[in-house]
């Protein structure tokens, strides 16, 4: 059982608020829910949408077609009408000038006088969102008690009167739909269970909580879409979590605050997107050479340069891998789900601390800003491992001597000591240095220090888990992907099954280092097709370089959207038909789901 709903309206009209509320209603009803916003980089005037997919089975990704579309303006009708399934419903605000617009065929058209409903019930114009939710629930006969509870929670801080008015607005919308909808659409939905109290949460918030669970104490950042909501969320909650959150003057300052705080002994992090990461790059090397742990959350968007700021891509992988001058060890992680955002988010601080290196978490607009139902995070199970830290030093330093902070150890890991610890005085430095941290240009020492830092990789690689397999281990076809693309990939599996194609998904969330042990797993896959949200196959290149592995087919998408499950299924079917002949295929979105391209429609005014 599945239901897909989407709202389309002018930017600023509250599609996100309406969508978020509905995702909460359905999640409370025991459903699995995905909420997916799309919006251009404009505050007003552009076209925004929010899609909700609801199912009684586990789902992961938005899809291309909707059962119900709610259009609140003329463009909403134009852009979104083609995404309504046959037999579905197109609801539109009849206050909108829809004259002369071609309406889709085989679809119930349901005009709703939102303004009139508001006026007749003596409501506030600002309650249009609540009325819209009411109408949508009325259409499918979904009980409203959860919606009322949400309204209560949301507005009770303001006043009783506002709560009551909103409840009235919801009922007015609900009743209007019940009474006036006369179409063929007969779908109804009822809550399945109220026992499981799942959350509905975005990738960015999940990372933010993971960071807190991992003991992060200082977070510094500069706003940049699609990373900003990490900063917004943590800023709002800084007192609640008892941490310090700082918006700095730029991204250079942000990462340097975090590095400074980490040197002084607390776990610290920053978040940004590609442009901001470009500014952080020099400091990444400072963290590496001074062996100061640091976690950077990098939410990718469509580049290069300003690119398409509110759209998605996975094109910063090579950048993350090679950023900053010189050679140094780093870890690159790419969570694929909100659970992984949380648990890997927490784990990234362990890796940074234990190996005293930079850890970069790659997210992207798609995962960062979409919302997914998820079980509560088990934060108490998160282990905090700080690595080798000396809380006191027994041996007294000789006069005029410094502590040997960069001791040439067998493992390559030299115990850290924080300022404030007697006998631990040393310099954390961006220059090459001796064991006692004094800067040096002695060739032998330089070589020893390079090797010391390099040695850490050996231990680190032991900790890197194998990629995760979704579906049957021995399936004849393996879809390979990394980061967020696991979401549409896993949802493509049942589509393929319908056509008799059995596949599994091999998902990488640990992208670097890539230890040799992974090679065996990849080699055992029969037919492979790798999906990447970029135009050059960056991860394909890494698999070749580090594991000498080449997939049969490489499927790339780089138009600003992630893959949809339908596209993945289609590409796998095609590859299957062509017997997995080695090739590269390019995937671009087709017109039916085109809901932000004014130039493509002559009716747009």
């Amino acid at each position, binding site marked *: 059982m599945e239901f897909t709903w989407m709202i389309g309206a002018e930017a600023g009209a509250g599609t996100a608020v309406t969508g978020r509320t509905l995702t909460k209603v359905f999640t409370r009803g025991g459903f699995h829910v995905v909420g997916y916003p799309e919006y251009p980089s404009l505050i007003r005037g552009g076209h925004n949408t929010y899609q909700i997919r609801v199912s009684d089975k586990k789902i992961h990704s938005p899809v291309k077609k909707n059962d119900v579309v709610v259009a609140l303006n003329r463009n909403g009708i134009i852009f979104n009408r083609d995404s309504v399934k046959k037999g579905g419903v197109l609801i539109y605000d009849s206050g909108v000038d829809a004259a002369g617009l071609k309406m889709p065929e085989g679809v119930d058209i349901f005009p709703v006088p939102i303004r009139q409903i508001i006026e007749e019930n003596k409501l506030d114009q600002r309650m249009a969102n609540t009325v819209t939710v009411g109408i949508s629930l009325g259409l499918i006969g979904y009980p409203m008690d959860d919606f009322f509870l949400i309204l209560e929670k949301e507005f009770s801080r303001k006043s009783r009167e506002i709560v009551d008015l909103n409840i009235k607005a919801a009922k007015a919308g609900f009743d209007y739909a019940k009474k006036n909808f006369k179409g063929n659409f007969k779908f109804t939905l009822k809550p399945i269970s109220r026992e499981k109290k799942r959350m509905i949460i975005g990738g960015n918030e999940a990372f933010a909580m993971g960071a807190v669970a991992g003991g992060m104490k200082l977070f510094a950042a500069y706003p940049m879409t699609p990373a900003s909501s990490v900063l917004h969320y943590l800023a709002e909650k800084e007192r609640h979590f008892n941490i310090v959150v700082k918006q700095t003057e730029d991204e250079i300052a942000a990462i340097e605050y975090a590095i400074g705080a980490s040197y002084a002994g607390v776990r610290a992090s920053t978040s940004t997107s590609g442009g901001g990461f470009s500014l952080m790059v020099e400091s990444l090397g400072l963290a590496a050479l001074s062996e100061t742990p640091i976690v950077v959350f990098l939410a990718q968007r469509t580049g290069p340069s300003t690119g398409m700021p509110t759209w998605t891509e996975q094109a910063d992988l090579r950048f993350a891998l090679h950023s900053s001058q010189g050679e140094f060890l780093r870890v690159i992680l790419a969570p694929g789900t909100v659970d992984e955002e949380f648990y890997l988010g927490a784990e990234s601080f362990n890796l940074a601390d234990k190996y005293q290196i930079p850890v970069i978490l790659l997210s992207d607009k798609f995962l960062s800003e979409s919302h997914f139902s998820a079980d509560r995070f088990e934060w108490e199970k998160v282990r905090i491992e700080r690595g080798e830290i000396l809380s006191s030093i027994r041996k007294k330093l000789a006069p005029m001597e410094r502590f040997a902070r960069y001791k040439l150890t067998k493992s390559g890991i030299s115990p850290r000591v924080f300022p*404030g610890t007697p006998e631990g005085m040393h310099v954390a430095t961006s220059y090459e240095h001796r064991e006692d941290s004094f800067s040096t240009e002695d060739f032998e020492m330089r070589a020893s220090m390079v090797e010391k830092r390099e040695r850490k990789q050996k231990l680190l690689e032991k900790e890197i888990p194998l990629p995760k397999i979704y579906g049957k281990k021995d399936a004849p076809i393996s879809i390979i992907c990394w980061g967020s693309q696991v979401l549409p990939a896993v949802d493509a599996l049942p589509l393929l099954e319908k056509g008799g194609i059995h596949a599994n998904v091999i998902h990488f969330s640990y992208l670097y280092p890539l230890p040799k042990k992974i090679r065996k797993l990849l080699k055992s896959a029969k037919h492979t097709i790798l999906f990447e949200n970029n135009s050059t196959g960056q991860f394909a290149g890494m698999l070749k370089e580090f594991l000498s592995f080449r997939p049969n087919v490489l499927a790339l998408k780089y138009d600003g959207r992630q893959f949809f499950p339908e596209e993945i299924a289609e590409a796998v079917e095609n590859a299957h038909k062509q017997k997995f002949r080695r090739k590269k295929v390019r995937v671009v979105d087709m017109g039916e789901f085109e809901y932000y391209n004014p130039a493509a429609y002559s009716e747009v005014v």
Partner: protein
Amino acid sequence: MAELNDFTVKEKPQWCPGCGDFAINMAIKSALQEAGVEPHNSVIVSGIGCSGKMPHFVRAYGFESLHGRVLPPASGIHLANHELTVIGVGGDGDGYGIGMGHFIHIMRRNYDLTYIVHDNQVYGLTTGQTAPTSQKGMKTKTTPYGNLEEPVHPVPLALTMGATYIARGFAGDMKHLASLILGGIRHKGFALIDVLQPCVTFNKLNTYDYWRQRVYKLEEQGHNPSDYAKALEKANEDWKTNYEKIPIGLFYKEDKPTYGSGLPQLNVPLVKHGLKPVGLEEAMDEFI
């Protein structure tokens, strides 16, 4: 209490003989000693430049950052553990050039830390290019026909940006400089100490003699450092008199709440907080 020797390292500083940096090094050590700070409770944060070598020559904790990036890590260290005495040290190129953005913004925040700028009007480590504080007309490697730009005036800039302790020292008067640094350490808030520092190798204009003939001490003229209007007048005196009269000493001092006083999270230094996260259960409830 620590003695001066406790702040001394065995390596000899690698500055040119006669460089003003030696006196700044000595002044920092004696100010720390006099402030009663233990070496392990102080952190010297520097950028890159001749001035940037400072952490290696004070036996304390040190953080040698990147060129222009003194103040952000110093801020991070301070926020993580505000019980430490944090002193930022950098060149004029470092702080008033490439790092100018950080300098402007830190003054709006009034963190409790001290910032010392080796103001030698030239780029030392990179062998003598023009600096943001080079005087107009000055010839350097990159301004062979004379500098066409007006110099940055750090003292009036700091006054208008809200710094709460603003002083100028002279590396030719170590004792006086040390007292200004000591005042900065004791001041609760952001302290700037701009230091006229002769670069004997690359600046043949602003030499020890040049400064000696021109500087005078504000306190000897009865300057009242709580008088903002007077401070501003004094802050502009150097360039307004075409560098005939150059005041040194404390221009301005104001008691204002520090940034940290607005953060209840800092009742206990972050570094002393437990590792166990708080508040996650309630935070998750909000997503239901």
